[in-house]
């Protein structure tokens, strides 16, 4: 892997020619204007836009097959159940899970991580035990573990990152002790763009008998993910960053873990029999899906994954790599601009600060130029502390972005400089 390039554990097969304009035409929202200017959407790490195929799938589901799943014997219920099952099989193929029952539908990656912290980690944690995370985690991969530690008397250990924003793997290895009960790591950092060597981390942790959860919220829409090749125990992802709808997330878990874990939420659908004395749990994956699930969301996610693989993962990856390189060059040649997160293996994230201008002011000025970026701590306050900044501005890329849009960001940043005399 060359420095500054998107890394991955498994490189997808080369795909057909990549035509960004044709792809843009598939995303209705990209034709709108914002504050009188064409929308330049560079906040993809927060959520991606949705292709028409996803919108059509949602509308199609509600217009022609809406019914509750696993309930009725009537035609619509059976069709809705089938659509829901097919979505799960699609997700399983997307992540190369060995079985569809290893895919649990959740609301988002946050819920996926909470499920593992609650049902897998808590029962195993005792006072003095340790949970190991890294200094680049999103709050969603910090707080569930803090809660689990507080409830059990275990302690949270944090593997450090270096000045480039790379995980210090040697340090992480040192922090794996006989008391470590789980390692939870971002596959890719949302604040820095760093892509972690997750297959290596899994190997290192497994050598000590430590199970591993990977937070794939950022990685899943940029990099091919093969949970069997990674050999991870759990993989968390969210639909709305995979060009799918909000409100549907994914947890991959190995069969033997999911079988052994108690339910997370109680309710309908997750039981096989209920009496007032005792209930028995449904089989996988339903044990973890209490209540009516986000059926439409799963159907929309199915369409999103079809779309993404139809475009071609390798082609998307290469396009995003070129954009990142272009954007990195653009920002690093602007006086007073400093990129935060310069890992050798990174993808699609340009976090930066500008001398003398607070990121929030950058965000507002570029917004008035029609450019949407994120400013703030990106739900990664410890990362901001590590780099000694209160916040950063962050431009994040997706398959439909163009060099022209990065040029528009560059011009908007010139405006920032004019206004603030930076």
């Amino acid at each position: 892997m060359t420095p500054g390039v998107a890394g991955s554990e498994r490189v997808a097969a080369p795909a057909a020619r990549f035509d960004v304009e044709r792809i843009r035409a598939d995303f209705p929202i990209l034709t709108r204007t914002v504050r009188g200017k064409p929308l330049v959407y560079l906040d993809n790490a927060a959520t991606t836009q949705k292709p028409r195929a996803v919108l059509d799938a949602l509308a199609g589901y509600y217009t022609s097959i809406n019914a509750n799943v696993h309930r009725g014997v009537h035609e619509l219920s059976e069709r809705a159940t089938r659509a829901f099952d097919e979505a799960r099989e699609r997700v399983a193929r997307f992540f190369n899970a060995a079985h569809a029952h290893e895919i649990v539908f959740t609301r988002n990656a946050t819920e996926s991580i909470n499920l593992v912290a609650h049902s897998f980690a808590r029962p195993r944690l005792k006072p003095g035990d340790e949970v190991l995370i890294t200094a680049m985690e999103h709050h969603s991969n910090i707080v569930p573990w803090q809660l689990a530690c507080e409830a059990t008397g275990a302690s949270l250990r944090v593997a450090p990152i270096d000045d480039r924003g790379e995980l210090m793997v040697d340090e992480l290895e040192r922090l794996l002790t006989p008391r470590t009960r789980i390692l939870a790591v971002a596959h890719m950092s949302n604040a820095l763009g760093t892509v972690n060597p997750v297959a290596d981390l899994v190997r290192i942790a497994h050598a000590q008998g430590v199970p591993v959860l990977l937070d794939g919220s950022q990685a899943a829409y940029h990099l091919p993910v093969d949970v069997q090749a990674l050999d991870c125990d759990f993989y968390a992802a969210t639909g709305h960053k995979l060009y799918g709808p909000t409100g549907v997330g994914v947890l991959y878990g190995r069969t033997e873990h999911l079988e052994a874990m108690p339910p997370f939420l109680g309710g309908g659908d997750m039981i096989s029999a209920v009496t007032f004395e005792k209930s028995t749990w449904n089989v996988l994956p339903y044990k973890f899906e209490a209540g009516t699930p986000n059926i439409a969301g799963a159907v929309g996610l199915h369409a999103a994954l079809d779309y993404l693989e139809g475009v071609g993962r390798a082609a998307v990856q290469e396009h995003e790599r070129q954009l990142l390189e272009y954007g990195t060059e653009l920002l690093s040649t602007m006086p007073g601009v400093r990129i935060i997160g310069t890992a050798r293996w990174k993808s699609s994230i340009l976090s930066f600060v500008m001398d003398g201008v607070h990121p929030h002011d950058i965000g507002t000025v570029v917004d008035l130029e029609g450019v949407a970026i994120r400013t703030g701590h990106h739900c990664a306050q410890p990362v901001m502390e590590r780099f000694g900044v209160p916040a950063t501005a962050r431009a994040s890329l997706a398959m439909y972005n163009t060099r022209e849009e990065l040029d528009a960001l560059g011009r908007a940043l010139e405006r920032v400089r004019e206004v603030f005399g930076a």
Partner: protein
Amino acid sequence: MSELSDLYQEVILDHNRRPRNFHAIADASHRAEGYNPLCGDRLTVYLKVDGDVITNVGFEGSGCAISKASASMMTDAVKGRSVAEAEALFDRFHRMVTMPPEAAVEDLGKLTSLAGVREFPVRIKCASLAWHTLKAALAHEQRTSTE
């Protein structure tokens, strides 16, 4: 373009570049820390109150142009005023920045320049952070947050 200069008026940019009373006060009788978790802005407001009069006021911290300029202008506005006057000014300022954008703006002198934040809902907290911190300091609360 006009929206840009409506928000970042020259007086705001000036107070951002050269904040007034931008220092701690060693013999402060009141102080409070304000925090806006959305953008990470933090500031500390120091007050010296003699009897009923705010005889000295200063602030420290880091923040965006709006929050820094607002803090700077606030210190100018309340210095020499009575506590009751400062609290009344808080109410008028708060009303000004939270009114619907189309509502008429009361003339609050330089402070009126911050009325532009009404067009930018997420920036209202930036403009009001210093004022909330002032109020907390007067109430002898150590910390306040815009959340």
